[in-house]
């Protein structure tokens, strides 16, 4: 039991990443370790530039780590992780429907099947009327929804999301948060999500990882105690406020030291 569990977990151990900008090394990540249990929802918060995106990209195989080990679940999936990019990254030359079905197409699904799945996701992100539109005809928030649908549609058990709701307006954002909770509660994928929004992190996740400023290290690993299924009602509980101010204080210290150093 235990062995099977750990074989499908995502494990990162002492991952460091150094970039070179010109001659000077930039430490984006330092000795960062994290284990994601299958079916868990984890959020990463941290000051801008602390290496959150870098860590996600390393997990997704888009960036090579300088040192450290990463173990991905070995379940024969063609796409190890479905990615939602900070700036959506949908293809401007594909219609909305083709964009959503892209991952499925790459894993070799027949046209009829992938269209059916893509249409289903299209309506789940409420873009039914835009199936044949091109991304430049959509608003920023709509494009971001296409990117989210594209990730979910792959059926990959691991979702890596880099500020997926960052570009949305407040109302759409809340609706998408609700939808994300519902989706996740149905499908129980392993989700790792970067966000700048502390409330969002608490509402959505089982665990909130707070990172320190550059170089990014793990500063605090907080378990979110709220029962599932969750609603926005938990925002009004004292536990929620307490958790929020705890995370906020952790981040603030970092922001202050960053300002002193600057």
């Amino acid at each position, binding site marked *: 039991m235990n062995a099977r569990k750990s074989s499908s977990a995502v494990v990162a151990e002492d991952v460091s990443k150094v970039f070179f900008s010109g001659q000077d090394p930039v430490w984006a990540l330092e000795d960062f370790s994290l284990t994601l249990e299958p079916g868990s929802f984890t959020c990463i918060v941290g000051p801008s530039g602390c290496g959150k995106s870098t860590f996600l*990209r390393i997990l*997704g*195989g*888009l960036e090579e780590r300088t040192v450290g080990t990463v173990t991905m679940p070995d379940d024969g999936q*063609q*796409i190890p*992780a*479905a*990615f939602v*990019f900070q*700036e959506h*990254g*949908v*293809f*401007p*030359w*594909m219609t909305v429907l083709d964009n959503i079905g*892209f*991952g499925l197409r*790459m*894993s070799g699904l027949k046209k009829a099947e992938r269209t059916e799945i893509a249409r289903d996701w299209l309506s789940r992100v409420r873009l039914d009327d835009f199936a044949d539109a*091109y*991304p*430049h005809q959509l608003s920023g928030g709509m494009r971001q929804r296409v990117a989210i649908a*594209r990730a979910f549609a*792959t059926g990959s058990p691991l979702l890596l999301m880099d500020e997926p709701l960052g570009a949305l307006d407040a109302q759409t954002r809340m609706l998408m948060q609700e939808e994300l909770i519902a989706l996740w509660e149905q499908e129980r994928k392993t989700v790792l999500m970067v966000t700048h929004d502390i409330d969002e992190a608490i509402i959505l996740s089982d665990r909130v990882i707070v990172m320190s400023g550059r170089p990014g290290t793990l500063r605090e690993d907080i378990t979110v105690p709220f029962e599932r299924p969750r609603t926005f009602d938990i925002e009004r509980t004292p536990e929620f406020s307490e958790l929020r101010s705890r995370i906020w204080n952790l981040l603030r210290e970092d922001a202050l030291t960053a300002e002193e150093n600057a």
Partner: protein
Amino acid sequence: MSTTSTSLQGDREQRTLVAATAQRARERSLATRDLVLSISTPILLLVLWELSARYQIIDPRFFPPPSQIVTAGYEMILDGELWMHTAPTLMRLFVGGGLGAISGIVVGLLMGSSRALNAALGPLFSALYPLPKIAIFPILLMIFGPTETPKIIAVFITTFFIMQINTVSGVWAIDRKLLEAGAAYGAKGFDRFRFVVLPGAMPFVFSGLKTATGTAVVVVTAVEFTGATTTGLGYLIWNSWQLFIPEKLYVGLVVIGVIGAIVTTLLSRSEKLLLPWRRER
């Protein structure tokens, strides 16, 4: 009370609609004016030319009045002389240019996707690119003799380099994020090429094609000037100068201009058709 407020609202809606309609009408009349201006300016110039040539304000030996050029053109169409020169030029342009464009695009895509290939060929091509292709023409003549081959090759080389360089830039200009999105969703090898690299490079390919068309027309005309041929619009222009028949010279000029304009228009049209995802401009 409520009826007055709805009628007020109706009023406002009505006024907004009226304003919008007026705005659109203004926009349309401006568009019509633009069209009229764009057509009437050249006509006005032609009329000026005609009059000043007739009244000898400009020397009609160098600038024959447009009516004479039209008559000369008409006669040349009737006796087949015009087609005799137009056909070979078109052939050289389309065979040389077509093959040059295709191979330039293919090589450009390969160089854009393979770092090693680009390292091997990039500097060499950059060094060759600014060479005036017309300067190589004598070498080609020496090798192939006064046949069609050297002329086609001259056009081929011209188009090839322009397309190769534009296509490589096109591949490099693809948003990194989109290449990563392709990779993240498992697009490898030929799929990556088909769904990400090729469509991503297309805008640059089309702007390259338009540049190449202009340059290819210049090169084919220049090659036909050289006396290595007795056909082609370039030859017609050159020969008319030597025999001092200015009307025919102008006919050749006009036909070359029209060919360039038609090809460029066709390219713009097919770009709109093939790349519907580009933001309308």
